[in-house]
């Protein structure tokens, strides 16, 4: 636990979040109208879906896996500049993904 690098978590979680967002692959989907959690998209009769919880859960998983793998492969800690760069790129990816709303 002591040797796990939070920088690798940030890199994995940010990259994972954007990847899942672009591929529309949240870990779970929530349908608030019927209070249903599901792994797959349901038909429109079930009301609006919420992917945010599933995207975030996926990002947490991606970050944890990346951090543990980096430890197992004995990789050195992520440079601060690289971590900030990946975080910025993830934000830019989200803005690009949402550009249709502002057209």
């Amino acid at each position, binding site marked *: 636990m002591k040797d796990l*690098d*939070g*920088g690798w*978590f*940030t*890199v994995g*979680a*940010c990259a994972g*979040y954007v990847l899942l*967002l672009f591929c529309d692959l949240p870990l779970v989907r*929530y349908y*608030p*109208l019927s209070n249903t959690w599901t792994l797959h998209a349901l038909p429109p009769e079930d*009301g*609006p879906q*919420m992917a*945010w*919880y599933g*995207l*975030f859960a996926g*990002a947490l998983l991606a*970050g944890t896996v990346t951090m543990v793998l980096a430890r197992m492969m004995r990789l050195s*800690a*992520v*440079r*601060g*500049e690289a*971590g*900030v760069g990946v*975080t*910025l790129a*993830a*934000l830019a990816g*989200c*803005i690009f*993904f*949402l550009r*249709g*709303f*502002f057209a």
Partner: protein
Amino acid sequence: MIVITLLIVHGLTALGLMGALTHQVLGELSRARPRLSGAGFAGRYTAVAPRPFTGVIVILYIATILPGALIYPTYRLDVRPAFEDMGLAWAVGLFELKEHGGAIGLAALPLYLRLWRKDGAEDTRWPRLAITLLLATIVWFDFIAGHLLNNLRGL
């Protein structure tokens, strides 16, 4: 009533978080650029030691995002359809950007913690300032966007 209470808690913790992050950014900036400091209000405001803010900022960030996540379904069922009916696609997009920004900020917290824990390391000063500035920008944006959207159509 629960939703309103959670919304108020969400807003109040966000306000505290915004203040703490702004203080930390300006405190760190004044250390990097000592000429920014002085004897006046600005000098005293930026003269704080920025490191002790770190733990509080992490706790406040989580405490802000939790009630937001709990009231999200109410937004999805009651507010977003109203925005769509009014043809306010940009408002829907603004909320989406707020939520994705909040999630990316949360994912960045472990790096933020690590960069602030390396006591006095000169080579991490600029990444430390950059990640703190990034978090401050996300929180300021989310706060203003949240207020704007709540004024358009409240919960």
